[in-house]
């Protein structure tokens, strides 16, 4: 993180640093239906946190709760150390970037970015300076006098960003801001958003259904499903140490084996014993990622030794996908293609295993 405060000649320094956001048992209920159920989550100041989930997971309700368009049924929402669950949206000082940008079509770029300052009664000359500052931050200073309709989608996105940061918000909230952009532009904008957030020291809560985007951008990702928070963790841990089968299945493919674990041995429901590093005891699900599976000689002595029959092989770009019929059930494996390996023929019997250190046991998940 570099500059947390920026000074513009002749104006008070702009405090761009964000504050923390804390959810305490926050719930939103519609009748008997919990759109958001007892959400506990702590977003650190300056953190980039994504809220990720499929449609219907409650992530949009969380967004509306933070922005203030939906009132929580119970629980508290703290911005910094202030409880904002009672504060109307227009007094929350949270910069929101909407999915479709929601720029005002009747105002030009300058007046759009200046809008939050105008409604706060900031003097004209200072508005001009701050608008310039914000436009510079998104590299749009040359477009200040354009009409919104004259801008491309990516440019509108930048203006929406500038408008959300110009009034020194205490946090930024983004609702799938890149969904409307094409793939290449989306990647550029991901980088821009990330570097802007870092240079401002701003707290960002980024709501999306796109796993790749969430993993690329975030310090931590909060995964939601059916109104409940499933796991909050770094992108790496979400993949390697998923908290439950939903999270495991949400990020990439996973072979999930249910059974119970005891004393470093995982016993599947079918009674097959597999070595694990988990020392706790009880019913559990073992998650083995397809790329962890190795064949034949690549196995080490402590790997489980299993055999399976090749059901199907498929090439997916640089990756060979192998589906095996094994005593554990169907197991998916992937191998990176190099010149020496050929796809095994269907019906071939293969010996396979995995590093017990990589297999991940999810306790209590059956």
């Amino acid at each position, binding site marked *: 993180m570099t500059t947390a405060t920026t000074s513009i000649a002749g104006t008070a320094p702009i405090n761009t640093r964000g504050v923390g956001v804390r959810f305490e048992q926050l*719930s939103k209920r519609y009748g008997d239906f919990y759109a958001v159920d*007892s959400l506990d989550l702590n977003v650190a100041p300056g953190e980039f946190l994504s809220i990720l989930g499929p449609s219907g997971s409650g992530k949009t309700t969380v967004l509306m709760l933070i922005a203030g368009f*939906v*009132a929580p049924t*119970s*629980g508290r929402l703290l911005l910094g150390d202030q409880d904002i*669950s*009672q504060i*109307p*949206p227009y007094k929350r000082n949270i910069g929101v970037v909407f999915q479709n940008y929601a720029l005002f079509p009747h105002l030009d770029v300058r007046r759009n970015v200046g809008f939050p300052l105008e409604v706060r009664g900031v003097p004209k000359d200072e508005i001009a300076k701050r608008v310039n500052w914000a436009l510079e931050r998104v590299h749009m200073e040359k477009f200040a006098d354009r009409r919104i309709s004259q801008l491309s989608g990516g440019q509108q996105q930048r203006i929406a960003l500038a408008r959300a940061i110009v009034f020194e918000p205490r946090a930024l909230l983004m609702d799938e801001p890149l969904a409307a952009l094409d793939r290449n532009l989306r990647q550029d904008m991901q980088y821009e958003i990330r570097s802007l957030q870092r240079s401002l020291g701003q707290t960002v809560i980024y709501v999306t259904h796109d796993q790749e985007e969430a993993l690329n951008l975030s310090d931590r990702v909060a995964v939601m499903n059916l109104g409940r928070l499933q796991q909050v963790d770094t992108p790496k841990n979400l993949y390697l140490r998923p908290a439950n089968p939903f999270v495991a299945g949400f990020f990439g493919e996973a072979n999930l084996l249910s059974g119970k674990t005891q004393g470093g041995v995982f016993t599947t429901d079918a009674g097959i014993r597999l070595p694990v590093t988990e020392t706790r005891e009880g019913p559990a699900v073992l998650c083995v990622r397809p790329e962890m599976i190795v064949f034949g000689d690549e196995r080490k002595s402590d790997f489980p030794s299993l055999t399976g029959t090749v059901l199907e092989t498929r090439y997916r770009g640089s990756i060979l996908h192998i589906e095996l019929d094994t005593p554990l059930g169907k197991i998916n494996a992937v191998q990176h293609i190099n010149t020496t390996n050929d796809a095994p023929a269907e019906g071939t019997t293969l010996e396979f295993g995995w590093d017990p250190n990589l297999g991940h046991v999810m306790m209590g998940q059956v």
Partner: protein
Amino acid sequence: MSTTIPNRNTLLAGFSSADWESQRRRVTAVLLILPVVMMTLLFLVPLGYLLWLSFGGPAGFSLNAYKQLSAPFYINLALFTLQLAFLVTIACAVIAYPLAYMLANIENTLSRLVVLGLVISLWLSVLARTYSWIIILQRNGVVNNMLQWMGITDGPLSLVYNQTGVYIGMIHILLPYMVMTLYPTMRAIDGSLVRSALSLGATPWTAFRRIYFPLSMSGLVSGSILVFTMAIGFFVTPAILGGGSANTIVMAIQNQVQVLVDLPLAAATSIILLLVSMLILVVYEKIAGVEKIFGEGR
């Protein structure tokens, strides 16, 4: 299902001023006060007063006025009004359909000219247009002069101050409404449906009859309801162009007020007409949805 900590939001739910949704509802109520009061005092109250008068008003309850309305004179008047409105509606539908079809499917200068003409016509005063038809249709008017000059007729035809004039004038005034209702429906018909019908071997006529026409039906129905309603309540045009030969219910009401000075009778007649038009409005709401008129949900 979960342990929830009640907070001030739940405790003060009814009083909370911060809740965005309830604040929004309050603002909505504030916005609606003036228009709702205005509609109540200046629309519902006069009509309510009319209802009261029709049942005898200050003289005490009586069905006298309604009994008077069952006289053959009023029955015939009502039948004529319905017949006039019905025929005008049919004529408008038939005339408007190909025109709306062109506007919806062919984009050229001619289409734009038609739209321009329709809009100008809509905007031109009804009184002015009716007056203009007198000039056009009178014995030494444009049409008669033209017909005689071309040798089609020997003497002048009487085209105005009779039912012919009424039909021409009413069709002219109501036609734009029919086109304007048909147009969006036809515009919304997916062209690929017709194309696929043709590619499946349907003749153009079959494709029209089986695909296009059924899809345009909703516009035709709502346009017809609209035109029919307006035609029933039409006053200026039949009164002027009819020259006494096309007396409708609304003209009878005017007569009851200004000549007969029978206010309960006029009130009762108005109430009947009001009920008919409200009935049509409700039917329209059921079939097409009033929000369509408001440009929503298109």
